[in-house]
């Protein structure tokens, strides 16, 4: 079943080293609740039954609980990604809607406290540990998202062992986007190292019973590997823009908006869906053409990098 990833807010309470530049600027904001209602009204019509909330930090949306209630009453399943900082306070609000909560994903950027805290700020590792403790006691399913960076590339197995011991239902590794800031901070690894890391993750997938996946963006000769390109996932940013590019939607303070399909303040979700189909056809045609003309660079085989360049999301 297709799903929608909804950026509820671009506000965040942390200031992570690897966060996308300008993402959480002071002129940011929260998704209007009227737009959420619009999505809930239309999405079932295209057989969507799962909504995933992201941000920013989605739990910071001032009407987060009200949104969950509406999602629950409209009979959608849901999940969200969180840095976990305020979960020990807000988890109570989730409990009434738990039977439609498919899982919470905690961001954990290191198997060790000092590694994670270096990236996300002091105290954030212990917060996540408290959060997963609550999930275990309250039987709330959770998974862990981790970004592979220069200083974590050698500790992938350690991360898988940690996730297993904590009782996580899954572990998702993702590549770090090579933004100028991430490169300057020495966080990124080279495309060659990415391929090596992907091989290591492949081995972990075989040796652990817990599901381990690699987030879209890994090296592949499949031209349309991710859920968005397979029309299985739609992305909506906090401005109400339905976007084609999932990883960097909302990036750049309005620059490079070629990926914006339409705004839900101005049109229905059903209308943006039609536009999505048209853009997808154009994108597919051009990508196939470029590939067949042997115009691909090595980096074009990392689908996120291809999209970032295609939609001019970075300078």
């Amino acid at each position, binding site marked *: 079943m297709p799903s929608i990833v909804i950026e509820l807010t671009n506000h965040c309470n942390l200031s992570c080293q690897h966060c996308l530049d300008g993402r959480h600027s002071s002129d940011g904001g929260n998704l209007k609740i009227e737009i959420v209602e619009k999505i809930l009204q239309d999405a079932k019509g295209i057989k969507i039954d799962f909504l995933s909330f992201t941000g920013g930090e989605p739990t910071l949306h001032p009407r987060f609980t009200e949104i969950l209630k509406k999602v629950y009453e409209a009979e959608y399943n849901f999940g969200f990604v969180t840095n976990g900082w305020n979960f020990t306070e807000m988890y109570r609000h989730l409990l009434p809607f738990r039977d439609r909560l498919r899982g919470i994903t905690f961001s954990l950027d290191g198997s060790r406290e000092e590694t994670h805290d270096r990236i996300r700020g002091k105290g954030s590792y*212990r917060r996540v*540990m408290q959060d997963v*403790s609550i999930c*275990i*006691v309250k039987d709330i399913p959770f998974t862990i998202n981790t970004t592979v960076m220069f200083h974590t590339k050698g500790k992938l197995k350690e991360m898988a062992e940690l996730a297993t011991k904590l009782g996580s239902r899954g572990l998702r590794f993702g590549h770090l986007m090579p933004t100028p800031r991430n490169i300057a901070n020495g966080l990124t690894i080279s495309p060659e190292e990415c391929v090596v890391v992907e091989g290591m993750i492949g081995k972990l997938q075989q040796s652990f019973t817990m599901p381990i996946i690699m987030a879209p963006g890994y090296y592949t000769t499949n031209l349309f590997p991710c859920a968005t390109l397979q029309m299985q996932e739609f992305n909506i940013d906090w401005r109400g823009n339905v976007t084609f590019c999932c990883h960097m939607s909302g990036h750049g303070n309005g620059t490079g908006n070629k990926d914006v399909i339409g705004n839900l303040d101005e049109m229905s979700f059903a209308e943006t869906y039609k536009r999505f189909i048209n853009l997808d056809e154009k994108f597919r045609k051009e990508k196939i053409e470029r590939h067949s003309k042997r115009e691909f660079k090595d980096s074009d085989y990392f689908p996120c990098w291809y999209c970032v360049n295609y939609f001019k999301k970075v300078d």
Partner: protein
Amino acid sequence: MPDLNCRIKPDPEVIITTLEEDKEAVLLHLGTKAYFTLNETGLRIWQLMNSDITLREISERLQNEFDVSPEKAKKSVLNLIDELVKEKLVRVVDE
């Protein structure tokens, strides 16, 4: 095995998370990644452990606060501490 004259301290690698308006808690040892849940009485024992008092004094405080017999209070304290020691969640400070 600790007796009532012991003082106990939480292991520094243990984090505690309270739930349900402080009537329940869960411990997580960051080294072993072992979870351990505490009920209301267990949570109170854990809190009193940080007051640098003996298990006998903890037991006496429980008798008053939860209106239980001295024997029951002693048994509750010693049984819990025994489990916590086995799980390496606490350390015996002195005996």
